[in-house]
């Protein structure tokens, strides 16, 4: 099911006359702007022209009238007035806070000096696809600088550097995202297969530990992993490097390799993102593997398939839609991730490789010019938006396929779970324990810094040499900014959740219970935010809302209520939708028969029965609202002071370099994690096994 399916029935042979009309429609505004007409007037005039053209021809007028009356009939058949109001409210809201800003920023990207132009994309100087020095996009391998692994011998102590390459902004982004997707998918699928198909000692704990990386405090997570694994003076190097970089801890416990290993740049970004996003593939793949009809696998075995053939030709293909959905979601989130590049900015060899990524460039250039993105950054926003939307369209196709695959089975099966024998278990432990150790390193690092004394974890220390509660004491009792940040985050998230619940129930109700023209479109619009790069949405809000009562310069927090609502909407809609699907419509029909009105039925029958789903969905929206980074950082920046949220306050401390600020940022990160974990445990209690709501897919 794609967004376009609802229009599929109109596919007819296109009259060449209409091609000419469309060409004229595109060319007219371009020509008009060339003679000095402002772009929006030019576009408006062309549209009016088109309407006049359509109305003047009898044939098209009749066709339009027929089309309109058919749609209207369908609408009247499928909808009552309450549902109409619901659709209107949701549509208006999403138009104001999602569609219009995105369309507007895309429109701006094609306007140069009040004229419609492709100069930002294919012009002479600093256009992104044809700039002479190919800084934005390149197909020429000779533009590649650097190598993935190199050995620096210019110092007294040599360094093994694992970093990445610097090609061009779009190229770097794609390399990072593909790398992240590849690693996340391999990890996620392997883990899902092991967990769904084998029983072994300690599986229960491991299964829980595996999803912890889903909750990771922004910004500070990088500090911990740098100190433990990535930097020259990392705990890893201090423990295992023969040529210890530290003069005070010259003797490593067990020398494994000669020179310190430094992981930076692209490699660091890919590792950190993979350790975070593999959970998405893992969760999707787990449900995909669990849903495979065991009889299919049994038939294959009966026909003589060995284990390898079975996995290759039965299990994997059947699970593929689920895996692909997780992988594409990973790709989208990796492309739009701005937090990780901020941490690893200026690292690697060449040092500009992480700076040269789409999300980071857009982030940097929002602040340069007070709400006016640099013109090429505008074009980059459009590229980022198109990339993410393409992924979203593919993902919807695969979700459709997944539903089809599930139809072919039927009922719930006893999954095929084997007891792993001792050697297999040992193999699993050998894979799972190091993986978990690495995946939980960011959390460990944040905890060590949060409870470590200020300055207690220096370059030569394997771990903090002093533990204390002072950092928490400071942020909670001695510093106002944290209290404001917590208060702001809670208030904004709560207000957003109220809006999400109201609008989410509206949307889920009409999507689950009604059929009307444009339903697929509404479905697409309310699911889409999961794929919209927050940084682009934040930039677009700057363009659209400056000078309105929601002016972000005045108070970015007001606007955040709406950006949180839009961005975290899909979690709730999906959960409520699932609840409505499970709810037998007969219950509602009984109410109508007894004379209950539509709204009374909704209030007295439906809402109480799906309240658990609403609560669970709202809690997931809440968990992710608290940790929202990209629009917050776009609208607030890293110096919000008392007008910040928890994530931007973490970013602010992280970037202020005052005494203890790093530790305080981590302490705040720990508080955020605790808040999120409580909400998730609570949600899981309510949702039990319906974990799909977590990913919103």
């Amino acid at each position, binding site marked *: 099911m794609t967004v376009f399916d609802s229009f599929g029935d109109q596919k007819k042979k296109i009259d060449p006359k209409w091609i000419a009309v469309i060409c004229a429609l595109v060319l007219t505004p371009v020509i008009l702007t060339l003679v000095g007409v402002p772009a929006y007037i030019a576009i408006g005039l062309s549209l009016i022209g088109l309407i006049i053209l359509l109305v003047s021809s009898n044939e098209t007028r009749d066709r339009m009238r027929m089309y309109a009356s058919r749609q209207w009939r369908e609408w009247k058949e499928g909808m009552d007035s309450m549902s109409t109001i619901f659709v209107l409210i949701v549509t208006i809201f999403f138009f104001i806070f999602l569609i219009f800003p995105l369309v507007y920023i895309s429109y701006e990207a094609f306007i140069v000096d009040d004229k419609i132009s492709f100069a930002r994309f294919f012009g002479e100087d600093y256009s992104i696809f044809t700039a002479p020095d190919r800084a934005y996009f390149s197909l020429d391998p000779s533009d590649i600088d650097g190598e993935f692994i190199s050995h620096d011998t*210019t110092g007294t102590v040599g360094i093994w550097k694992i970093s990445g390459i610097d090609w061009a902004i779009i190229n770097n982004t794609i390399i990072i995202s593909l790398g992240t997707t590849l690693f996340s998918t391999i990890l996620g699928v392997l883990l899902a297969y092991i967990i769904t198909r084998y029983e072994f000692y300690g599986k229960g704990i491991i299964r829980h530990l595996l999803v912890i990386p889903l909750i990771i405090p922004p910004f500070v997570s990088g500090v911990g992993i740098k100190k433990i694994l990535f930097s*020259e003076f990392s705990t890893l190097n201090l423990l295992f490097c*023969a040529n210890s970089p530290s003069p005070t801890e010259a003797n490593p416990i067990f*020398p494994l390799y000669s020179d310190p290993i430094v992981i930076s740049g692209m490699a660091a970004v890919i590792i950190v993102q993979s350790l975070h996003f593999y959970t998405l593939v893992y969760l999707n793949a787990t449900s995909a593997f669990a849903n495979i009809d065991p009889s299919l696998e049994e038939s294959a075995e009966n026909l003589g398939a060995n284990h390898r053939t079975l996995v290759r030709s039965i299990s994997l293909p059947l699970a593929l839609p689920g895996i692909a959905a997780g992988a594409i979601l990973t790709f989208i989130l990796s492309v739009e991730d701005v937090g990780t590049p901020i941490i690893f900015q200026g690292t690697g060899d060449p040092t*500009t490789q992480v700076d040269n990524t789409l999300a980071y460039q857009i982030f940097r250039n929002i602040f340069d010019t007070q709400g006016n993105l640099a013109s090429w950054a505008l074009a980059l926003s459009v590229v980022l938006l198109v990339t993410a939307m393409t992924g979203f369209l593919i993902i919807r196709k695969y979700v459709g396929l997944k539903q089809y695959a599930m139809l072919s089975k039927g009922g719930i099966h006893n999954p095929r779970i084997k007891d792993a024998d001792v050697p297999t278990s040992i193999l699993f432990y050998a894979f799972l324990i190091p993986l978990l150790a690495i995946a939980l390193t960011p959390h460990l690092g944040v905890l060590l810094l949060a409870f470590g004394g200020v300055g207690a974890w220096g370059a030569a220390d394997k771990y903090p040499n002093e533990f204390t509660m002072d950092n928490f004491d400071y942020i909670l009792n001695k510093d106002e900014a944290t209290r404001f940040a917590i208060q702001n985050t809670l208030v904004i998230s709560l207000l957003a959740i109220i809006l999400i619940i109201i609008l989410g129930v509206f949307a889920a109700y009409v999507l689950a219970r009604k059929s009307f023209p444009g339903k697929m479109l509404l479905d697409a619009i309310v699911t889409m935010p999961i794929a919209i790069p927050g940084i682009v949405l934040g930039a677009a809000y700057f363009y659209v809302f400056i000078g309105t009562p929601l002016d972000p310069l005045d108070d970015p927090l007001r606007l955040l209520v709406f950006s949180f609502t839009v961005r975290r909407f899909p979690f709730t809609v999906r959960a409520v939708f699932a609840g409505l699907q499970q709810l037998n419509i007969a219950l509602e029909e009984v109410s109508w028969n007894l004379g209950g009105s539509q709204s009374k039925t909704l209030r007295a029958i439906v809402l109480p029965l799906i309240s658990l789903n609403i609560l669970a969905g709202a809690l997931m929206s809440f968990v992710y609202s608290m940790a929202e980074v990209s629009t917050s950082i776009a609208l607030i920046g890293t110096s919000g002071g008392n007008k910040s949220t928890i994530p931007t306050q973490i970013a602010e401390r992280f970037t*202020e370099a005052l005494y203890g600020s790093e530790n305080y940022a981590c302490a705040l990160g720990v508080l955020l994690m605790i808040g999120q974990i409580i909400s998730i445990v609570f949600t899981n209690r309510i949702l039990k096994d319906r974990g799909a709501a977590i990913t919103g897919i």
Partner: protein
Amino acid sequence: MIRINQKASFSFVLFGIMISLISGNLTLLSTTSVIAGESAPADATINVLTRHSSTIFNAVELAFKSSSYAPSGTIDIVFKARDAHQWPTYIDDGDIDLAWGGGPTLFDEQMERGNLLPITQSSITTEIASMNDTYWQGPPAGTIAGSPMYRYDNGDLMWVGSAIASFGFTVNSFKLEAQGLPTPSKWEHLGHPIYYRDTPAVAIGNAPDTTSNTRIYEIILQKYGWDLGWAILTMMGGNSVIKTGSTEVLVAVEEGAVSIGTTIDFYGFEAELKYDYCTYVLPDNQSIVNSDPIAFTTHSHNDASRNELAEAFMHFVLSDEGQAALLADSILRMPIRSDAFATAAQDSDKHYVSQLEDLYERTLNNTGISFNDTLSLSYQNTMRNYQSATTYEANTPLRQAAKAIAQAWNDERIGDAQLFLIAMDLGNPLLTEAEAQTMNDDMGDDQTFREGKVSEWRQAATTKYDDVRSTLGSMTYNEAPEGIELVPEYNPFAAGRGSYNDTSDFVPTTEEVSKQEGAVGFENMAALSSLGILGAILILRRKRRF
């Protein structure tokens, strides 16, 4: 009828919620503590525009409220931490009372725009007059180490310094040792090929992103003049990783990613206080003192209690007590009055005050540059963007050129004289100082112009760096080319090979050499992983048999 009413009221309530949200009635979100009930006459809330971080202004606000300077009644101070380019917008809005922190350049700019009010309040002028210090004298001379602490406009006092800052570099002694580098003592050292390492030894800031690093580049440009200044800055860029913020520079030093970072003094001192392997170095007679001003801004209200509160806050910031508050470990700002150290020393938490006072004295005795604010302001926009285009955006070709220069230097294919010429070639500015001044306004205001120039410079710089690299490859001369006479004092790199090789730090100790020779290599790692692979194969094979 009933149904319609219900529906209507339902949607009405909904729209009500949405409209109230949109119209911005979210008083809950306001940072000011909302006071219920009628306000007493002395109650006041002022807005302060600031470049300080929340840690600083929250700490000072707290100290102010508990001091005797705070007027009675319910008072509140709302700090608006905004980027420098947003300041005029906010002041024009008419609701800002004070501006605090951000450097003299920013305040001069506001003064020229007519955004500042003269300071005439007697409490403040008396306080200032009473400040006669060992290091500086009160107005109208009013300078600390040559840097003005006040600005007068037509005889009116427009802004006062509230703290001072100096500029230098923070070094990590562990990393210096690991990279085999001597501790630098002058700005130009950071550009010398001695400091080139494949993993950059130096971190500097991208000028548009950091005011402190911008000031450092301005110091270098004023000390050495436009052409030689850019030669040094470009060579520095070749040895450096460019960070997009001053904090990132400091963090890179603290975590040992680089050996040296260019920082403002309190960043360096924060690192010293945290880690004993970090040291803040003041370049020998090459620093300046910058004041961090406070001023009244023009505003549209005429509220006596607000004006009184603004006056009281400024008075506090300039007082002995307020100055001592700046010495808290979360702030570490150098005061404008040295009696603040004595006051702060009474506080047992501030055990580091004597160290700070020592640094204060060193700073004030170590300035060697008469800095011209007007000059730096005249080309600032151009300079920042030019630095960014030629060193940050073109960093990769620049690093490659620096590597080639370092190789030529280490192979002794070039000497001091050639190095100087190569540096002048590499850094040869693509525009003159006068041109930079002419285009300064357009660089600030005209986005299209700025982007065009930055793109042009980036491309031209890349070509220039590649050219230098290719000529270096064939360069074998060891003497100064004919026709060029070098004045030794004028060559900042002249002290080069000789003096660096004398530095005992630079020669690896015997212990280090033996450590390298006895390197274990990857044998253990290889042995361990082959064992693992063997085990895995065994297990898998066994499994298949089942």
